């Protein structure tokens, strides 16, 4: 992989003017429940795909949005372009709030805000030839007078993205091009109107290894020549390190850490970023990196965890991280997976149905009748067995009263993005008031 060209880091990034300012942006999707559920007024669940993002895009920078699949990268990218309506918040660009414009008002602005898609094959109309497809933005915005002019401009753009000679590609249908060629055509279409901002949603993840680096190099060249600003969406830290001036790490619809690429890679602050980086042994994009994140999966987006949404997976989670009933259940599940069937049979009879341990309450009440003392000692034993389990840091008290065992958790606090050197991070470990002494 070639080294990053100089100009991107030479300019002091804070000195650049702001191109787009995003304030408390939220995009929520209403999931439709069953017809019956809607009838009963319950309504469906809400997925908070983007949940309170603050971000100032600086002119000329490459900002990486990095996170696991489902963390809301695509939704955020699309929201920046007004392709999905914002549920709340502001996107200030060119003196206007994109979040408040309707589709008709947004249309003229789309010249300046463009997108490169993950799957170049799907992003091109299969029945439109390359010259027409690439020139279409010009025709839509009335920037060319004739088909011939559009074609000539398309030829220019096609050559600009490295499809040379253009004659060979102009009359082709997308299906006749290779993946990398299609992505070049998509990029040509994106730059033909002279945009300011390009959102590239995993632009290389569907391409062959052999062409990935070339496409990124092309994008860097174009940025230098055309004065572009990029939002580069990826789940691949290696390319983010190569490509971005700044990276924002996303987890469950939020930015949990944002800062200069070099600093984040050298000294990640957020436990999630640290875990992600540990999973990348080598910044070589040729290698398929194993995903070796700490325990568990990304949580259900329709029912995000209390407090810090990363806390069920966080090895450093402590008192204020948002402990709740579900974590107790997860603790038992892990314990029984580890200790085997016999223990499970014995203890599950006592604990009862795990499914019934649910909810967000910071206090769990287990009605076990006269076996309450047994349950209390079981909890003590579980704690003694695995004292490093972060859950125990969150347990405030375990009381037994009249056949009911009550486990109380400490109150959870939602971590806000705060400064830690040049990096902004949303983690209580870096909050001077909450951080363990």
């Amino acid at each position, binding site marked *: 992989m070639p080294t990053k060209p100089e100009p991107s880091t030479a300019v002091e990034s804070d000195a650049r003017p702001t191109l787009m300012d995003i304030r408390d942006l939220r995009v929520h999707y209403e999931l439709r429940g069953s017809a019956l559920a809607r009838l009963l007024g319950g309504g469906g669940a809400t997925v908070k795909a983007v949940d309170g993002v603050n971000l100032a895009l600086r002119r000329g920078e490459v900002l990486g949005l990095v996170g696991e699949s489902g963390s809301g990268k695509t939704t955020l990218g699309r929201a920046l372009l007004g392709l999905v309506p914002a549920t709340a918040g502001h996107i200030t660009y060119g003196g206007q709030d994109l979040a408040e414009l309707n589709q008709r008002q947004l249309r003229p602005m789309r010249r300046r805000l463009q*997108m490169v898609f993950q799957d170049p094959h*799907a992003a091109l109309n*299969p029945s439109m030839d390359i010259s027409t497809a690439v020139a279409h933005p010009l025709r*839509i915005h009335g920037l060319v007078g004739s088909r011939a002019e559009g074609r000539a401009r398309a030829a220019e753009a096609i050559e600009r993205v490295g499809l040379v000679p253009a004659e*060979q590609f102009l009359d082709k249908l997308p299906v006749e091009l290779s993946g990398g060629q299609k992505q070049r055509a998509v990029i040509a279409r994106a730059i033909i109107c002279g945009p300011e901002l390009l959102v590239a949603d995993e632009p290389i993840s*569907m391409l062959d290894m052999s062409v990935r680096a070339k496409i990124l190099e092309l994008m860097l060249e174009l940025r230098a020549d055309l004065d572009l600003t990029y939002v580069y969406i990826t789940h691949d830290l290696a390319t983010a390190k190569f490509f971005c001036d700044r990276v924002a790490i996303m987890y469950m619809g939020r930015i949990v850490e944002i800062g200069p690429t070099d600093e984040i890679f050298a000294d990640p602050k957020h436990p999630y970023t640290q875990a992600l980086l540990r999973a990348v042994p080598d910044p070589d994009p040729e290698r398929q990196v194993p995903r070796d994140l700490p325990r568990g999966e990304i949580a259900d987006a329709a029912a995000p965890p209390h407090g810090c949404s990363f806390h069920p997976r966080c090895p450093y989670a402590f008192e204020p991280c948002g402990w709740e009933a579900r974590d107790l259940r997860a603790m038992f599940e892990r314990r029984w997976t580890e200790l085997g069937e016999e223990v499970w049979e014995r203890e599950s009879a006592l604990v009862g149905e795990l499914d019934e341990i649910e909810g967000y309450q910071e206090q769990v009440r287990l009605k076990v009748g006269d076996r309450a003392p047994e349950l209390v000692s079981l909890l003590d034993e579980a704690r003694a067995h695995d004292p490093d389990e972060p859950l125990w840091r969150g347990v405030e008290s375990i009381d037994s009263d009249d056949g009911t065992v009550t486990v109380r958790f400490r109150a959870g606090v939602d971590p806000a993005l705060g400064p830690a050197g040049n990096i902004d991070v949303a983690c209580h470990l870096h909050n001077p008031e909450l951080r363990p002494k």
Partner: protein
Amino acid sequence: MATPNTPLSGGGGPFPQGRGRAGRALRGIARPYRSSHGVGRFMLVTGTVLVVLMVLTAVFAPLLAPFGFAQVSGDDGQRFATHLEPGGDHLFGTTTQGFDVFSRVVWGARTAVTVVLLALMFSLFIGVLLGLLAGFVGRWVDRVLVMIMDALFALPALLLAIVVAFLLSEYVGGGASTAALAITAVYVPQYFRVVRAATVSAKEQTYVEAARAMGAKPVTIMVRYLLTNVIQSVPVIATLNAADAILTLAGLGFLGYGIQPTEAAEWGYDLQRAVADTGAGIWWTGLFPGLAIVLLVMGLTLMGEGLNETMNPAIRVRRLLPVSMPELTSRTSAPDAAGAGTGRERGAAGERPEQETSKDGDAS
């Protein structure tokens, strides 16, 4: 672009135009014939030959038919004998009314082709337009249109045609356009359904979002991004419907709701008049119009089924196997290049700016 490169030429269009489009259209038409095989190809070719013969008959009817469709006397002013057996001046004989059967069959081809073409055009236009609208706009527009179309679809075809023909005959008369409109009403729901379903799924494609991201208006998206893709399922249905439409037209004529005998020759009407003849051993008045109906319906059906066989992706898989064999000189074609993957233009793709291999197969 913000920093335009040197223009390649002053707006004159340095590259040849038109050739690509016309060529592609021709190739598009030829494609099913080239990629078909076995039974599918036999059906397609036989059907096409029959249909082309009928269309030629229709076009050249004035040259082919010795007499007019309502002519009952020769140029000498002498009335034709009725019930003449086939032979002599009257190749297929004459009818009770003294019409020349051969001429009526030939003119009947013209009527059938005209009416079916008109009906096809009307129903395609209305069905595709409404289907696109319902699929793209959704919401109440979709719900209302679907309800109307389902209601139309639920009615028996002939009954619907009769009702429409009956209602229209007062205003439009009993000519070809009334018959065509009556048939249109029958087939609109089919195009509507197919196009609506295709639109609903095409609407979710990334290229539609890409068009939105470019700033395209909804109308532009519908015409340039959806129509061209959803229209591809239409030829098969259109051909099959044409066959059906011939029968509906004949049915209308047979029942007396079709084209009036004074307006044009029509096979269904002739058949109905011939019913009485059969008892008297007069076979030729019924046989020839009947045969004409059978041949045209068969031709269109074979063509439609042949097209279906070659264009239906489920069946196309079989055909793909030999195509995707590794080629030495040019790269293997992507799965969705099915029809096109016969090696044409692969030579040019060989001189790529860099070594890239397509992953389309995984991507789609």
